[in-house]
């Protein structure tokens, strides 16, 4: 026990001695949290629309005004020249083009229907789909209006209608920040835990100080405990700090038990740090360890359900995802914070994490050799 205390003391001195490392550990993650949460949003507002109105009739102008009045669209340009609109799209200045043909109004009232053309910049498939949905909504809305005006009697309305009510639970305003804050917090403590623990032993290897430790009578488990504990404490501290910032700045709901969050986090960190340690026992230089860590982190993060939903992945990928610790913790932290899930709801995921931690730590203790290669 005393040996571990000494190792701990040494590690803490080493961390706090390094002046330029401190802001990176403590300030950068918080800035990141604030910046990234604001950046990560799929909500579309101010879609720039170029209107090519060849008709210039009452109806076409009204339709244009309807687009401008909707919260999603801004009519940024108007012209008679389609070529100009195409150029603007090529330049990236606009997101969509609405072209109203000649005799739009005339055709509409004569033939009972009329076409308009909508061209959408769909390089980002998701936004493309959203823009199309919003535009269809605006047009349908306007259409309903003119029909009602032309036929005031409810002749046009279907005789039977199904009425749909929506309720969005746990996040009634569909606030994206509420969703992102817990996820980004997980991301930040993962990076701190994984990278710092991963780099630590390799650094001693590369500089050569590991041999000095190897010749001491210290046991393997004592060494590993001493190496892990400081970062474990730092990461948990960071989580607490991040939650506080999230609560104060973004007012994220904390419905469930905060202690449960920390309890799960403490186990999760063991998994992540075990991973980091394993990487660091397997590599010889910091550069190597960094690349390997980056490689796995990237896959873990992209498949964690942070940005995109896990359900939309193909089923083989969902099976692979069972070995992704980040996915477990993101799911659990969202369930606890946003829905108030209790231990009973998450115990399965929690047991998997616990088992995972044991496997990773034993693997890394086994792989670490007290002998120079």
């Amino acid at each position, binding site marked *: 026990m005393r040996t571990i205390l000494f190792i701990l003391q040494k590690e803490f001195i080493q961390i706090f001695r390094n002046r330029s490392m401190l802001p990176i550990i403590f300030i950068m993650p918080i800035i990141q949290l604030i910046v990234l949460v604001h950046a990560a949003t799929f909500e579309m507002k101010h879609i720039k629309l170029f209107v090519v109105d060849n008709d210039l009739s009452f109806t076409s102008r009204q339709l244009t005004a309807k687009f401008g009045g909707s919260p999603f669209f801004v009519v940024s340009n108007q012209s008679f020249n389609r070529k100009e609109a195409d150029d603007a799209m090529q330049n990236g200045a606009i997101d969509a083009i609405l072209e109203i043909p000649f005799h739009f109004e005339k055709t509409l009232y004569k033939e009972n229907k009329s076409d308009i053309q909508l061209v959408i*910049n769909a390089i980002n498939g998701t936004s493309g789909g959203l823009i199309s949905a919003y535009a269809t909504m605006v047009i349908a809305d306007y259409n309903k209006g003119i029909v009602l005006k032309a036929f005031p009697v409810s002749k046009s309305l279907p005789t039977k209608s199904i009425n749909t009510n929506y309720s969005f639970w746990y996040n009634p305003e569909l606030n994206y920040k509420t969703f992102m804050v817990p996820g980004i917090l997980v991301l930040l403590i993962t990076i701190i835990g994984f990278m710092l623990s991963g780099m630590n032993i390799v650094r001693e290897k590369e500089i050569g100080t590991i041999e000095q430790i190897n010749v001491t009578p210290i046991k393997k488990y004592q060494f590993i405990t001493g190496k892990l504990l400081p970062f474990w404490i730092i990461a948990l501290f960071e989580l607490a700090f991040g939650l506080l910032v999230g609560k104060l700045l973004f007012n994220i709901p904390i419905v469930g038990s905060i202690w449960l969050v920390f309890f799960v986090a403490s186990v999760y960190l063991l998994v992540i740090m075990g991973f980091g340690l394993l990487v660091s026992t397997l590599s010889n230089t910091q550069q190597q360890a960094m690349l390997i860590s*980056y490689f796995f982190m990237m896959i873990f993060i992209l498949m964690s359900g942070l940005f995109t*939903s896990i359900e939309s992945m193909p089923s083989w990928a969902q099976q692979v995802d069972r070995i992704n610790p980040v996915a477990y913790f993101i799911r659990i932290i969202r369930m606890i914070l946003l829905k108030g899930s209790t231990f009973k709801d998450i115990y399965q995921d929690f047991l998997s994490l616990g088992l995972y931690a044991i496997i990773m730590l034993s693997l890394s203790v086994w792989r670490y050799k007290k002998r120079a290669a």
Partner: protein
Amino acid sequence: MKRFKGFVIKEFYHIFRDVRTVIILFGIPIAQLLLFGYVVTNEIKDAKIAIYDQSKDYLSAKLSQKILSSGFFELEKNLDNYNDIEKSFKEGKIKEIIIFEPNFAKNLKKNGIANIQIIADASEPNTANMLTNYTSAIINTFSREINPLAQQPLQIIAETRMQYNPDLKGVYMFVPGIMAMLLMLISALMTSISITREKELGTMEILLVSPLKPIQIIIGKVTPYVLLSFINTIVILFIGNFVFHVPIQGSIVLLLAESVLFILVALSLGILISCATNSQQIAMMISLVALMLPTILLSGFIFPIENMPLVMQWLCQLMPPKWFITIIKTIMLKGGGFAYVWKETLVLFGMMCVFILLSVKKFKIRLE
């Protein structure tokens, strides 16, 4: 010149000696492309829902059938009382619950109106939004089908064309994004680590007292990474084009030239980082925390920049990848020539000059 050649050869040895690193360097783009191409999507498929049917008549059964056969939803379970709703959501699997009121078919026939309630788990707002949109679209179609008589007069028909990406494929976004991310990783991160490594191990001292000029040392250090990044660019374009059929509409020469420019920007950034720090760990943390996440999130790679708050949008302007991604998209997907990207090119060039100037100012020939 001969000395310089020897130095570059030494650097190549350093990199290629380490087989694991080389494998990963070339494995990353491939793994990333495959992940984005096949795994990470926003499309909804087989989302788990529950149905609470209080009327259990032919109409509600028909509508449920219609919803479930759409391919978007999968029935996880049928509920039979209100209290189960909260429980099912807390267990976390079910994303949406559809509730039919009692006497659904009867109400529709008698009063001409029937009610359905949809409750979505909005702790994932994006998914919740999409799910309810899909459900209401299906219900609307159904509602039209049971009213065959009501044909709407005065129809405005919008003919929609998805420019540049007719199938709304996600890969179109990801190929440029991955290029930016990877070039940033190899160029900025690897360079900064490899230079600080010499500092940390003390071999920088040896290099500084050698007859090589500091500028030669720096150029020699970055040359292998320029080459590696360039090969990776070609690999990404190749896989994107042949496996995922992402077109290259514009000039490939211009595309490669712009990539080289971006590589140089990232390299000068890497040099700047390594001039400012002394340990690999710090260089790595700065590159990783300050460069990687913003590259992913502030460059328009995953989240469109136009949706962000104004302050964020200004911040995005400072990110080199943002400009690079715009350039790549214009050339690759829109087929625009240099006339469309000269402004962005100029910005990147300016950034490079600033980074180089700063590093020259910071570079110390002497050790402290």
